[in-house]
């Protein structure tokens, strides 16, 4: 479960105040709302990337409000994937495991398993600048899933893709994430994503989050 209670975030002139919602464990939650309404700020607060001025964030039963991002066990996929430009696809997938000093053999197995699941086995030695938009998003998703997170935060992961690639990644999300027990918080503008992926939909407007579905 992702639970946000009376969240306050201040960022320059922009602020979110008294924002609360609950996303039950294993559900796919989508937040929609106009550009600039604070969706990304909310997502980054859940990931621990924004300093919050008040309120609590709970992941499961654990209060993670003061935890560092890396202690929360949240996989994060930003808008354009943000693949590290100096690392090959294989090293992107191994990055978090190497940080945890995982045995090389286990890292190799995990990278192979992830790359097969995401259909990127043939790209393991490529650099990010040699990947298409859809391939980048697959790698970014794989990198986020490498730590076997219980929670996944997706910041408009399909927005920069053409229609055909959009459908491919959308199918991939259905296959690899939805229904696997991972709780997903996904922000988007796209109605199709809302219709096909969301178990729960929240609309964000004027500092309030209304449940629509």
């Amino acid at each position, binding site marked *: 479960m992702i639970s946000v209670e009376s969240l306050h975030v201040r960022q320059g002139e922009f602020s979110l105040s008294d924002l609360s919602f609950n996303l039950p464990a294993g559900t796919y939650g989508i937040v929609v709302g106009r550009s600039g309404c604070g969706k990304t700020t909310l997502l*980054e607060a859940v*990931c*621990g*990337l924004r300093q919050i001025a008040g309120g609590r964030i709970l992941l499961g039963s654990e209060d993670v409000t003061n935890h*560092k*991002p*890396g202690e*929360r066990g*949240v*996989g*994060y996929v*930003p*808008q*354009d994937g*943000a693949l*590290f*430009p*100096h690392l090959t696809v294989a090293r992107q997938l191994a*990055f*978090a495991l190497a*940080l*945890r000093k995982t045995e090389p053999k286990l890292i190799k197995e995990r990278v192979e398993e992830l790359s097969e699941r995401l259909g990127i086995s043939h790209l393991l030695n490529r650099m990010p*600048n040699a990947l298409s938009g859809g391939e980048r998003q697959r790698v970014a998703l794989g*990198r*986020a899933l*490498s*730590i076997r997170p219980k929670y996944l935060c997706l910041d408009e992961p399909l927005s920069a893709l053409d229609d055909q690639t959009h459908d491919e990644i959308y199918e991939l999300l259905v296959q690899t994430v939805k229904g696997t027990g991972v709780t997903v918080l996904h922000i988007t503008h796209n109605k199709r994503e809302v219709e096909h992926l969301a178990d729960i939909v929240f609309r964000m407007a004027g500092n309030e989050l209304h449940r629509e579905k």
Partner: protein
Amino acid sequence: MQSADGNVVTKPSSFRPGSDTPFIVGLSILSGTYVAIILAMIAADLAYVDADSIMSALRSKEIQYSIGLSLLSCSLSTLLSLWVAIPLGYLTSRFEFPGKRLLDTVLDIPIVLPPLVIGISLLALFNFAPFSWTSEWVVFEIPAVILAQFMVACAFAARAMRISFDQIPTRYEKVALTLGCNRSKAFWLVVMPQAKRGVLAAGTLAWARSLGEFGPILVFAGSTRMRTEVLPTSVYLEMQAGNLKGMLAISLIMIVAAAAVLVTSRLMGMKRLEP
């Protein structure tokens, strides 16, 4: 001609935005004049000196010492500059904190101050403890040359590093933090590999600034032959001795050294550091 709602409209075909030629020609003349003057200056230096003057300058023990000290002091001041400029650039690029504007202004001081004033200020500083405890080994000695170069070069390097870090989006660090990095690991594993070109640019800038530094060195390190003599000091000493050819020969050596560093860094930047 009138539109459906009665307004007069201009025929699309009757409008011409005008020629771009005068603008392009203007740009080319203004830019070309400056570039031509730079090249003409170097050509004039070359025309004035003969091979004998250059060879005799290169054979002179004083000039050999001066070249050696210039190369050594510029390299050390560049390393020192990067050692300070990288954290300073990252701090000012990524963090908001009280007094940040003041810090920015303080960092501009070595850039906007006349270089001579930096030398005088360093001389004054080394009259006070704890600096005065070391002044016997620093002032008018080789460390003074390096320190004088560092004080100016570091400010330029810090600016260059800040611009470099500003150009690297924070998204990469954010992802790295969620994957388990702390700030330090995110910096070393994700940011620095992308800032290689910036480090190279800042290092080149610091090296070139150090090579050309003269005023602060003259005041803080003196101009003693075979002791604190760097290439700009040699030019000054030759000028005082009325040796125009010697002066120009040393200037040419400096031009070659600066060009070599510039070309090397460009080539390295193009070939090795592509992310």
